[in-house]
């Protein structure tokens, strides 16, 4: 039993170390990578444009639900006028960075893990190394840079769409004055809320995309699942680990840095 606990603990610590080395190597490879711009643009397209519909749909419905729930809670205290503040602060501080990150992990992160896993399986990654090309610099660095651009942008979009969703349900359906709603939004959101929102988006983006890339890049390491099953297992791990890490990081940032 003790042996098992010890082995598992060592594996987890070793995994964290390996992940840190992987991310560090991928970030430092930016300096040596040639013609990075083209690949960053492609990665921004994959993480940004392709994921846009999901962000818009989830954002609008999150706003709609927040508006409905918020209205019914606030009406008990006769404070419907604060609906804009409730929706905006919920979105800016928590919902937008977390939900946008989870959506991006589900779509762009899983695709990244699967693509890298296939490239590992078909020896494309080894081929890069034999050519003298840094596989981290060529395959991973552009994705990490793109995540630093797309996650904050998608989060901002999520906030805007969510606020409109809140306005739709609050003003259009439930009769809260539109001017009161937007005025409440304007007064509630401060600069530090926006700073928290974008800091979370940046950290979630870098962490989740690194985990997805790390899992896909080493899809061949498992001794129990190889080939297509290995890629499938790596993709599943990528999504699960990233989602958990996003929530843990959210708690840590909110507790200690905000």
């Amino acid at each position, binding site marked *: 039993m003790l042996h098992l606990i010890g082995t598992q603990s060592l594996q987890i610590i070793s995994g964290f170390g390996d992940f840190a080395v992987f991310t560090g190597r991928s970030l430092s490879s930016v300096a040596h990578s040639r013609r990075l711009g083209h690949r960053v643009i492609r990665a921004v397209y994959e993480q940004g444009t392709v994921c846009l519909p999901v962000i818009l749909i989830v954002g609008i419905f999150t706003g709609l639900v927040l508006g409905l729930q918020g209205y019914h809670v606030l009406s008990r205290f006769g404070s419907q006028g604060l609906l804009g503040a409730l929706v905006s602060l919920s979105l800016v501080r928590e919902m937008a960075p977390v939900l946008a990150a989870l959506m991006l992990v589900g779509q762009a992160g899983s695709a990244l893990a699967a693509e890298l896993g296939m490239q590992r399986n078909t020896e494309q990654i080894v081929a890069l190394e034999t*050519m*003298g090309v840094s596989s981290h610099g060529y395959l991973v660095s552009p994705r990490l840079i793109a995540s630093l651009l797309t996650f904050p942008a998608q989060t901002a979009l999520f906030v805007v769409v969510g606020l409109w969703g809140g306005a739709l349900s609050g003003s259009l359906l439930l009769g809260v004055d539109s001017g009161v709603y937007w005025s409440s939004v304007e007064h509630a959101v401060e600069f530090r809320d926006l700073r928290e929102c974008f800091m979370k988006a940046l950290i979630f983006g870098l962490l989740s995309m690194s985990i997805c890339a790390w899992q896909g890049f080493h899809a061949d390491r498992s001794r129990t699942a190889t080939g297509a099953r290995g890629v499938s297992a790596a993709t599943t791990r990528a999504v699960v680990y990233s989602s958990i890490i996003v929530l843990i990081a959210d708690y840590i940032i909110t507790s200690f840095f905000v």
Partner: protein
Amino acid sequence: MSVADREFIIQVEGLRKSFDARCVLDEIDLGVPRGSLFTVLGPSGAGKSVFLKCLANILHPDAGRISFDGRQLTAADSALRTEFRKRCSFLFQSNALFDSLTALENVALPLEQTTNLGLREIRERSMEALHQLEMDDFHERYPGQLSGGMQKRLALARAIVTQPELVLFDEPTAGLDPIRRNAVFTMIAKYQRQFHFTALVVTHDVPEALVASDRVALLNHGKICFEGTPAEFSASVQPVVCGFRDSAESLSNSIDAIRQKNFTM
């Protein structure tokens, strides 16, 4: 640098590699003469691909010395490793083409990433490499849209576009029928002479290798059992050479017999 060092582009001494308790390469000593087409023969599982991957630094040997152009390749000497990678190309058994890139982009990739050439020159050189391998009409196709033979040629175009001095071929004829095997070996021999690179091929296809190669070696159970010219290999009376040669011939004859039977039915 000794005469022997100048003669061999790559030389291996005492190379050992094990996986867990299984010894795959056991004290391999081999020199590949510069400008030759050198084939390492051996049955499946003999350690041929492991040997080639140790040379290409994809796998790290447990012991032994690998010298390139008379200089020892060590993990510490990153400058020499970089130089080796610039002067050496590796052709994978699976071709390892980038399926999300077109044929032209695949060939251009090593030039884009390892040289300071301008985009126009990279395109010209890549198109020239595709043209030399009669692939220029297919430069906008993706690897998945090409036949197996064309993919092999595309992989060779990518391997030679950087004008390497040494090209390592890992089982280039694996899974191909006898006619295509012959065509691939003919292609390797043709371009090896045309571009003057040294070719090191590992395969278990004896007849094709004996026709095309300048020198052959036989790797069996992790050891080099024979090294010499194809004529010496054919004439050798060493039991291990006879056994491998006869089993390969017997298999080839059986396949021919089955084919003839099918045709006459």
